[in-house]
């Protein structure tokens, strides 16, 4: 325990709900001056919400925050900044249509310290009169960081600062962050890369499901303790595994869906796998490892830059989600705001795909529609008391509607992207069971999940993606949470050092970032780190 006076920033009992969704239940955090403090937690644990509350971008429902022992009240990010608390967000906060100099003036950033930090961070040759929209993403993040450092904040929060950076810049950033210790400042550091946490952080606060579950001193070997805290007790909940198809012998010869060397954007590099009829295949990955892009490609939203898709052994090319749907690939998004007509009724939402094609624009056969819709409502046990507008349903019921839409029309291959994010345990179990039932009825399900325990609950096997590549394939029987999490962090019994892959991944993503339409300068050549 630390003495109160020794704490620079302390938050206790912070809670925040958005409608029915609980983002933070009971988060606390104590940061000492001169330390780099890691904020850890699985996807959706509430890290970003806590950061937003500390910088007063949003106001908490409950909880108290003190700075140097005094209550801290800030009503806007500007006030928080004047009080010395500043954050560098995941998306750069620069105005795309202003040049860098104007962006600095907008935020009243002193220019000489900014230049100093820019040099420290290794971005030496920046033209301040470039429009922010023409600057590569990696450079924007460095600019954002330098801009924050230039005002000498008391507490600096870095949210996934290194995610889009090439290896050499990452190194400089970590070095600069480490040096902040010498002053009386504090850095709150959010990252999914254990290796960086180990390299630069002193202590780590671990969040799970919106609550602080532990504070760990970062020492060699503390990774396991952190992983353990992030997982919590392993719930031996209802298991759907008993319904599982009996191994591989029942598989058809041709996979329902074959993915071959798919590459897209800066994050998805080379993913291949097969999805067979009657199976639920899990996809496990940390945030931002290319899974979003993979599902976008499979759903027909984005055309891949490389690789091939085969459905039932035939090569397919999707120009529009309608093509994917015609090929039997239907997509259930995690973000319900992306999938639902929030102002429309449950029935219209479920019936949405029925009239999507131009040949279906005629009069609706109401009784036929009602039969199908009500069948799906019954199958998914959707609570229809507030059926007039989908946005008034609970999150779980909303998610059921997005699934019901495809169940109602009959489904061959369902692509589920984290379908149980932010919904209650009972609904989660219903969804697992439904997925198993669909598989038992001969459908194929691809299930990306951020909740590792779902893999054993719902899947037959799982693939693990890291840095845009499949790094492991694990049978459900062996896919307990520690195994999956280690695989997701690409930690493997000390043989393969994660930074190899990490460095490779970030280096190639930097290539992509630079491939963006930059002004007209030719890409300056620079030595590539040897691999």
């Amino acid at each position, binding site marked *: 325990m630390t003495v109160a006076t020794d704490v620079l920033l302390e938050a206790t009992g912070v809670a925040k709900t958005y*409608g029915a969704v609980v983002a933070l239940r009971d988060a606390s955090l104590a940061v000492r001056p001169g330390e780099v403090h890691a904020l850890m937690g699985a996807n959706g644990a509430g890290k970003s919400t806590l950061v937003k509350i500390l910088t007063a971008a949003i106001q908490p429902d409950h909880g108290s925050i003190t700075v140097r022992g005094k209550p801290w009240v800030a009503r806007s990010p500007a006030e928080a900044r004047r009080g010395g608390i500043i954050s560098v967000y995941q998306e750069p906060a620069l105005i795309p249509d202003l040049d860098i100099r104007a962006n600095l003036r907008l935020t009243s950033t002193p220019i000489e310290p900014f230049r100093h930090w820019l040099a420290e961070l290794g971005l030496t040759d920046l033209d301040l009169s470039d429009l922010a929209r023409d600057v590569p993403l990696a450079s924007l993040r460095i600019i954002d960081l330098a801009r924050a450092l230039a005002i000498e904040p008391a507490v600096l929060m870095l949210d996934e600062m290194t995610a889009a950076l090439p290896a050499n810049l990452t190194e400089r950033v970590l070095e600069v962050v480490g040096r902040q210790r010498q002053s009386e400042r504090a850095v709150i550091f959010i990252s999914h890369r254990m290796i960086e946490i180990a390299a630069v952080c002193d202590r780590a606060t671990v969040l799970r499901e919106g609550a602080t579950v532990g504070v760990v001193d970062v020492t060699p070997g503390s990774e396991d303790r952190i992983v353990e805290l992030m997982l919590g007790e392993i719930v031996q909940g209802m298991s759907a595994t008993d319904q599982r198809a009996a191994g591989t012998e029942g598989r058809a010869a041709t996979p329902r869906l074959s993915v071959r060397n798919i590459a897209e954007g800066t994050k998805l590099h080379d993913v291949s796998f097969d999805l067979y009829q009657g199976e639920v295949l899990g996809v496990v990955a940390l945030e931002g490892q290319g899974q979003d892009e993979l599902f976008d490609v499979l759903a027909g*939203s984005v055309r891949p830059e490389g690789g091939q898709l085969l459905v039932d052994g035939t090569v397919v090319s999707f120009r529009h989600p*309608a093509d994917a749907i015609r090929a039997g690939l239907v997509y259930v998004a995690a973000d319900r705001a992306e999938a639902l007509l*929030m102002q429309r009724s449950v029935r219209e939402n479920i019936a949405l795909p029925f009239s999507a094609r131009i040949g279906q624009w005629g009069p*609706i056969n109401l009784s036929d529609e009602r039969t199908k819709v009500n069948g799906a*409502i019954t199958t998914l046990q959707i609570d229809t008391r507030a059926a007039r507008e989908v946005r008034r349903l609970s999150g779980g019921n909303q998610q059921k509607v997005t699934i019901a*839409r495809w169940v109602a029309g009959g489904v061959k291959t369902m692509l589920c992207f984290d379908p149980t994010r932010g919904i209650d345990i009972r609904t989660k179990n219903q969804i697992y069971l439904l997925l198993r039932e669909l598989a038992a009825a001969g459908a194929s399900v691809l299930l990306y999940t951020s909740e590792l325990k779902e893999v054993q609950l719902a899947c037959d096997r799982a693939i693990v993606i890291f840095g845009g590549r499949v790094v492991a394939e694990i049978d459900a029987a062996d896919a307990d949470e520690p195994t999956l999490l280690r695989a997701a962090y690409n930690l493997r019994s000390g043989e393969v050092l994660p930074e190899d892959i990490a460095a490779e991944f970030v280096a190639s993503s930097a290539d992509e970032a630079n491939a963006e339409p930059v002004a007209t300068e030719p890409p300056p050549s620079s030595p590539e780190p040897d691999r």
Partner: protein
Amino acid sequence: MSAAESTPARNPYLTAAGWRLLFRDRPMIPLLVLLGVLVVASEVARPGIVSVGWAGTILRAAVPLAILAGCQTIAMLTGGIDLSVGAVASMSGFLLATLVGGQGLLGGIVIAIVIAALAGLVTGVGVGVFRVHPLIMTLGMSLVVLGLANVWQIVMVQTGGGVPPSLRQLGTGTLFGFIPYTFAVFLPLAALILLGLRRTGYGRMLYAIGDNPVAARLAGARAWQVLIVLYVISAILAAIAGFLISGLTNVASVTLADSYVLPSVAAAVIGGTSIMGGRGGYGGTIVGALILTVISALLTSLGYPEAVRQVLYGAIIVIVAAAYTRVTGET
């Protein structure tokens, strides 16, 4: 299982917060109340004014507005707006007046509607395929249509006044003194729009791409197809309204319907159609058109100048839109 259609046993609208619910779920009821209040107010302000003849005048004046407001309704459901209805309506009315001599009434109507539909097609391609903002696209189209109509006017060396007598009779006549003949056109159109929005796949798509274009796309819808058809329908409706307006006023000029454009948007907004898309319907719009017409008549009967009517129009739109945003905007 008819749970989707079930209504709560107790009437939840009788509580204090219930008024908000009522406004949100059944905006028709407060709108009809408002219309009733306005009618009563007319009677109070000018005792004896509310009569069968008065009703006929109101309905006759409201029909073209309601049709043009129908254009705005379907455009606004998709998150768009159609400012070209005025130009298209005027052009069609004018075209009909100039063609009726040579082509006959039916021929003139067909030609005018086809030309209007072509204009709508161009608008639809601009909005749907080239993704030009509907405001700009329809604004540009109205300049084009107005200009071409003007050229036509000079080519024909024939100004207004050629409104065919049958059209004049259709526009001004009433049955039993209060059912305007124009209802013969309006009622089928209104039924078509109402049913089309609720009971056809196309209607569902209008709501869908307005509510959430991403979700519609993920469900397999191609927005450009929906938008092209939408603006063609809108232009055809505008053309029909144009015929009725020239019949009603016995004027055919290339700027005849311009003064209807903003009221048509206002009627749709008052009727509860959100300009952000995905919410609303034609029933509310019709009541909205009636409300605007009654207000206008009331103010005229009180001897208030045009000016007061305009100020009131504006104030009502802001207040109603703000009220809708308030009750529908939260979570």
